[in-house]
C-alpha cells in the first residue's frame, strides 16, 4: 500500500510540474511543446533542474511503483494473497503493465533526456536480474510466478529505456498470455491439492492432473523463451537491441538480461519439477484426491495456451516489424 502511494505521489508530482510549465496536460499539447523546452531549467527552492529530466524522473517513479521495479517491488509478491484469477488478470496481464505503458506513452518526453533513459535501462535490467534470483529461492507456487512477473517487467522497462518502446510493448502483450496461463494453471493445481501453495508439499501430480501439467509446461516453456514459442520472439529481440545499442548501459542490460534468462529457465523448470515430476511429498489423503479442474477452467486454459504458443510469431511483424507504424 505504502509502496504504491510512493509511486502515485511521483506520478502526481510529474503531472503537476507538466501543468505548471506547459499550462496543459493533454498529450498532443505537451508532446508538441516539448522540443522547444529541451534546454529549459526548472527552479525549485533555489535548486535548478533540467525540466524534461525532472518530469521524466517523477513519471518514472510512478512507473516503478506500478510495475514493481527494484525498490518498490515487494508489494507484488505480497499481493499474491488474493484469489488466483485476480492475480492472473491484475498482477500479470493488465495493472502491473501500466508502468511500462506509461513510459511508452510518454516516449516523446523520455526521448529528450538521455540521462533518464539510462536510469530506466539500469533499473529495468537490475529488476530483471534481481527478481529472477529471488524467484529461484521461493517455495510458494504463486510467489515464484509473481517474481517471474517482476523479472519480465524489468525486461519490458529496459527495452523502453533503450528507446525500443514497441519491443517492450510486444513483450508486454506476449507476457500477458503466458503469464495468465501460468497463474490460472497454478490456481488449478492449488485447487487440486486442497489449497496447498507450498511446492515442497506437492509432487507426483503429473499423472493425476495431466491436462494442467501440459498447460503449465507450455506456459513455462513460453516464459523461458523456448525457441518458436511466444516468449522467445520478444525476449530475444529485447536482448538483441540491448547488445546492439553499443553503450555501457546497453551491454550492462544485455549481461543482466542474459543471466536473468538463465535463472528464469532454472526456476521455471524447478517449479514444474517440484510440482509434477518429483515423488509425492504431500499428505497421502490430499495427493490421492487430486484431480483436473472442471471443464470451465480447462477451456480457459485451452484458450490461453493457443496465443501463448502462436501470438509471438503472428504479432511480431505487426508490432515490431520494420516499417510498422504501431
Amino acid at each position, binding site marked *: 500500500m505504502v509502496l504504491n502511494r510512493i509511486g502515485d505521489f511521483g506520478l502526481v508530482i510529474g503531472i503537476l510540474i507538466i501543468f505548471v510549465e506547459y499550462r496543459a496536460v493533454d498529450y498532443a499539447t505537451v*508532446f508538441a511543446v516539448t522540443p522547444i523546452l529541451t534546454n529549459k531549467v526548472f527552479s525549485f527552492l533555489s535548486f535548478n533542474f533540467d525540466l524534461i529530466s525532472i518530469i521524466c524522473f517523477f513519471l518514472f517513479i510512478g512507473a516503478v511503483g506500478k510495475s514493481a521495479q527494484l525498490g518498490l517491488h515487494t508489494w507484488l509478491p505480497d499481493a499474491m494473497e488474493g484469489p488466483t484469477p485476480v492475480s492472473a488478470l491484475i498482477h500479470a496481464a493488465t495493472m502491473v503493465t501500466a508502468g511500462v505503458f506509461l513510459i511508452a506513452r510518454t516516449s516523446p518526453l523520455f526521448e529528450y533526456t538521455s540521462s533518464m*533513459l539510462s536510469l530506466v535501462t539500469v533499473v529495468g535490467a537490475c529488476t530483471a536480474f534481481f527478481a529472477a534470483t529471488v524467484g529461484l529461492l521461493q517455495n510458494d507456487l504463486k510467489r515464484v510466478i509473481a517474481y517471474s512477473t517482476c523479472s519480465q517487467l524489468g525486461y519490458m522497462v529496459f527495452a523502453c529505456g533503450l*528507446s525500443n518502446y514497441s519491443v517492450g510493448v510486444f513483450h508486454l502483450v506476449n507476457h500477458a498470455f503466458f503469464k495468465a496461463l501460468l497463474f490460472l494453471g497454478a490456481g488449478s493445481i492449488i485447487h487440486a491439492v486442497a489449497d496447498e501453495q507450498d511446492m515442497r508439499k506437492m509432487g507426483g501430480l503429473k499423472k493425476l492432473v495431466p491436462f494442467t501439467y501440459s498447460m503449465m509446461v507450455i506456459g513455462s516453456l513460453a516464459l523461458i523463451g523456448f*525457441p518458436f514459442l511466444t516468449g522467445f520472439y520478444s525476449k530475444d529481440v529485447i536482448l538483441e537491441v540491448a547488445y546492439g545499442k553499443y553503450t555501457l548501459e546497453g551491454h550492462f542490460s544485455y549481461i543482466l538480461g542474459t543471466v536473468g534468462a538463465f*535463472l528464469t529457465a532454472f526456476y521455471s523448470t524447478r517449479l514444474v519439477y517440484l510440482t509434477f515430476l518429483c515423488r509425492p511429498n504431500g499428505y497421502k489423503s490430499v495427493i490421492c484426491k487430486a484431480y483436473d479442474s472442471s471443464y470451465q477452467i480447462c477451456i480457459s486454459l485451452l484458450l490461453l495456451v493457443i496465443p501463448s504458443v502462436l501470438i509471438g510469431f503472428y504479432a511480431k511483424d505487426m508490432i515490431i516489424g520494420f516499417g510498422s507504424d504501431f
Partner: protein
Amino acid sequence: MFTATENMNRVDSEFIFHIYKILPVILSLLGATLSFLLYSFGSGLLVQLKLSVLGKKIYHFFNKK
C-alpha cells in the same frame, strides 16, 4: 510511440555477432537442463548447500523484505 532518430538501433541490432544473438537461448536451455538434472540426481547436494552457512545467508537475504 516516438523514437528520436539518434536512438534508433533496431537495424543495427540485426547485424550483431551471431553468438550474442543465440547466447540467451543457449543459456535458457542450459538453465532448464541444469535445473532438471540437479533436482533429479543432485537433490542431496542442494540440501547440503541450503544447510551450509553461506546457503543459509543467501536464503535469508533473498527471502527478507
